C-alpha cells in the first residue's frame, strides 16, 4: 500500500531538487533542443547540389567547359593536371576530365558522388555531341512532407531523450542517494519501499511531459515538423517510454555503490541503443542478421512507434506490438529491481 503523503513529499523533493539544479534543467530540456537545431540546420533540405568537375588544361578542355557550364547541374573549371589531381584527392572535384586525343574520365568508383558525376557528365557530353534518346522519358519529381531528415530526426530525439533522461533521472539519482547514505537514512524511517520507488519513477512523468512538449513545439515552430496523427499518441508513448526507461535505470542502480560504477553501466546499456536504435539514421541500415536484436531493443521499439504516430499518422492501436514489447521490458526490469534492490 502506498500512502499519499510520503509519495507526494518524495515526489515534490525530487522535483525541487532537479529544478534547482541548473545542469539538470539544461541537459534535460535545452540540450535536446540545441541538438535538434544543429542537426536540423546541418541536414536541411537544400536545392540539389551542383556536381563539381575539374577539366585538365589542354586542347578541347575549353569546349567541354562551355558544354557543362551551360547545364546548371554542373560547376566546371579548367586547371593544370596537378591541380585537377589534387582536387579529386581532396574530394572537391567529383570527377576529372582529360580531353586530349580521346575523352578520359578519372574518378574513384567507390565514391557515390563520383559515380553519379560520371553518368551525368557523360550524358551531357554525349547529348551535346548529338546523341539522341532511344526512348524519351517523361519526369515527375516528388517531395513528400514528413519525409525530410528533420522529420525523421525529431521523433528519434524524443526517444533518445526519454531514454537518457529516464535512466539518469532514476538510476543516477538513486546511486547518488546511496553514496550519500540518504537511502539508508530513509530506510530508518517508516517510509515504505514501494512509496519511494513509485515516487522516483513518477517524477519522470512530469519531466517527460515537459520534454516532449518542448521538442514537439520546437520541431513544429522551427522546422514545421507536424504530428500527423493524434497529438495524444506521442504522449501516451512518452508515458510508456518514460516508465520503461525509469525501470531500466532502477535495475541498473539496484546494486551500484559508486557514481563511477553507475556511469559506466549507463553508458554500457545506452551506447548500443544510441547506435542501433535509429535515432540519427535508420536502423534498417544494419545487416539483416542483426535486425532481430536491434528490433528488440526498447529504444528501437519506442523510436519506431514514435515515428509511426508522428510522421505517418498511425493510430496508437496499430502500435500494440511495440507497446507490448516496451511493457515486457518494463515489467521484467521492475520486478528484478524489487528483488535485487539494496538500500545501503
Amino acid at each position: 500500500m502506498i500512502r499519499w503523503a510520503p509519495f507526494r513529499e518524495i515526489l515534490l523533493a525530487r522535483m525541487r531538487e532537479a529544478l534547482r539544479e541548473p545542469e539538470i534543467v539544461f541537459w534535460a530540456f535545452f540540450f535536446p533542443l540545441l541538438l535538434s537545431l544543429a542537426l536540423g540546420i546541418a541536414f536541411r533540405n537544400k536545392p540539389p547540389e551542383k556536381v563539381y568537375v575539374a577539366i585538365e588544361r589542354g586542347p578541347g578542355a575549353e569546349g567541354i567547359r562551355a558544354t557543362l557550364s551551360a547545364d546548371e547541374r554542373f560547376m566546371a573549371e579548367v586547371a593544370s593536371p596537378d591541380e585537377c589531381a589534387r582536387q579529386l584527392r581532396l574530394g572537391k572535384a567529383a570527377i576529372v576530365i582529360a580531353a586530349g586525343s580521346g575523352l578520359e574520365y578519372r574518378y574513384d568508383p567507390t565514391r557515390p558522388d563520383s559515380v553519379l558525376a560520371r553518368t551525368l557528365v557523360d550524358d551531357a557530353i554525349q547529348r551535346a555531341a548529338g546523341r539522341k534518346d532511344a526512348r524519351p522519358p517523361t519526369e515527375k519529381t516528388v517531395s513528400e512532407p514528413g519525409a525530410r531528415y528533420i522529420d525523421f530526426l525529431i521523433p528519434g530525439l524524443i526517444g533518445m531523450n526519454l531514454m537518457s533522461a529516464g535512466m539518469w533521472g532514476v538510476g543516477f539519482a538513486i546511486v547518488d542517494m546511496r553514496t550519500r547514505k540518504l537511502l539508508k537514512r530513509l530506510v530508518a524511517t517508516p517510509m515504505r519501499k514501494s512509496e519511494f520507488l513509485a515516487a522516483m519513477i513518477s517524477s519522470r512523468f512530469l519531466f517527460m511531459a515537459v520534454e516532449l512538449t518542448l521538442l514537439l513545439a520546437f520541431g513544429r515552430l522551427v522546422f514545421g515538423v507536424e504530428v500527423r496523427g493524434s497529438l495524444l499518441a506521442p504522449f501516451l508513448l512518452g508515458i510508456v517510454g518514460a516508465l520503461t526507461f525509469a525501470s531500466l535505470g532502477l535495475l541498473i542502480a539496484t546494486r551500484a555503490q559508486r557514481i563511477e560504477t553507475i556511469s559506466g553501466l549507463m553508458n554500457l546499456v545506452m551506447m548500443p541503443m544510441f547506435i542501433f536504435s535509429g535515432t540519427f539514421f535508420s536502423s534498417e541500415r544494419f545487416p539483416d542478421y542483426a535486425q532481430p536484436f536491434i528490433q528488440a531493443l526498447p529504444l528501437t521499439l519506442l523510436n519506431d512507434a514514435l515515428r509511426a504516430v508522428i510522421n505517418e499518422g498511425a493510430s496508437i492501436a496499430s502500435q500494440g506490438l511495440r507497446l507490448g514489447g516496451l511493457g515486457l521490458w518494463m515489467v521484467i526490469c521492475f520486478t528484478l529491481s524489487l528483488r535485487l534492490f539494496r538500500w545501503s
Partner: protein
Amino acid sequence: MSLAIRCVGLKKTYDGGVEAVRGVDLSIEEGECFGLLGPNGAGKTTTVEILEGLLSPTAGDVEVLGRRWGTDDEEIRHRLGVSLQETKLSEKLTVEETLHLFASFYRTRRDLEVLLGEMGLLEKRASHVEKLSGGQRQRLAVACALVGDPELLFLDEPTTGLDPQSRRQLWDVIRAFRATRRTVMLTTHYMEEAERLCDRVAIVDHGQVIALGSPRELIARLGAEHVVEFSTDGEVDGTALAALPGVKAMHAEGEARLLTVTEPHVTIPALLALLKDLGRELTRLTTRHASLEDVFVSLTGRHLRDD
C-alpha cells in the same frame, strides 16, 4: 521499569571475515541516556545499526521497545528516531522542506514551528541545506530524527567534527529530549560528551564491552580520582614512583609519566622530594580529575582518540 533495548550475544561478522561485534549484551532502560564509548573501529556503529534494524546480526537476539526486527519493522520505525553517522541530506532542499519530507513518513508528527525553535533553526528554515554550517546541518539531522516524536532516539557520533559551541548546542537538545523521560542511545569517542550526557556508558573495544556503568562508577573503579602528569629531564625509576603515597597506578606516555592518585596534596610534595633526592629537574607538572579517558587507558593501555 521496562527495557527500551535488550540485546544478548550480539555478533556481526562481515563478508570477508571482519568480526566487528563479538558478543555484546546490553539492557537499556526506558528514560535512560546510554552511551557507547570507544575508539574508531571499535564496533559502535555496527552495534547501533543492528539495534536500528539497518543491519542484521550474524548471531544474537535483539528486542527494541519490546518488539523484534523482521516482524514489527514498521511499528518499531514509527517509534524510533535515528541520526546516522554522515548522512548527506539533499543540498537543494530547504530546512523546512527536508523536515516536511521526513515528517510525512510518521504517524505522529512534531509541530514543525516548535521543533525548529528548539533546534535553533527558525531563522534558517528557508535556507537550502548547502548553505548551512556544520553545526546547523547536524542539528537538522537530529531534527529529522525527532520529527516523528520518537520514544527512542539513536544518535551515532552526533557531535563529531563540530566546534565546541555547536557541540554544546546539541548537548542542550539531547538533554531537553531526555527531560521528557524518553530514551537516548548515542555513540561517541569523546569521553567528555559521555561524561556529561550519559546516565550509563558501555566502553567498547574490539567489538566487545569492556566496562559498563555510570561515568562516576567507572572512574571510581580506578580507585583514585586524580591524575598527576609530569615530565623530567632524565629517567626516573618506576617502582620508586609507584611506591609514593596515594599512588594507585602509574604509566608512561612518551616522555611523560602519569600517576593516578587519591590525594594530590599528599602525593605531589612526596614526588618533589623524590625528584630532588634523585637530582632530576621537573620540566612539566599538571594535575586534573580522572576521566573516562583514563578509564579507557587503564583498561587497554591505549587512548580513545588516535588523532
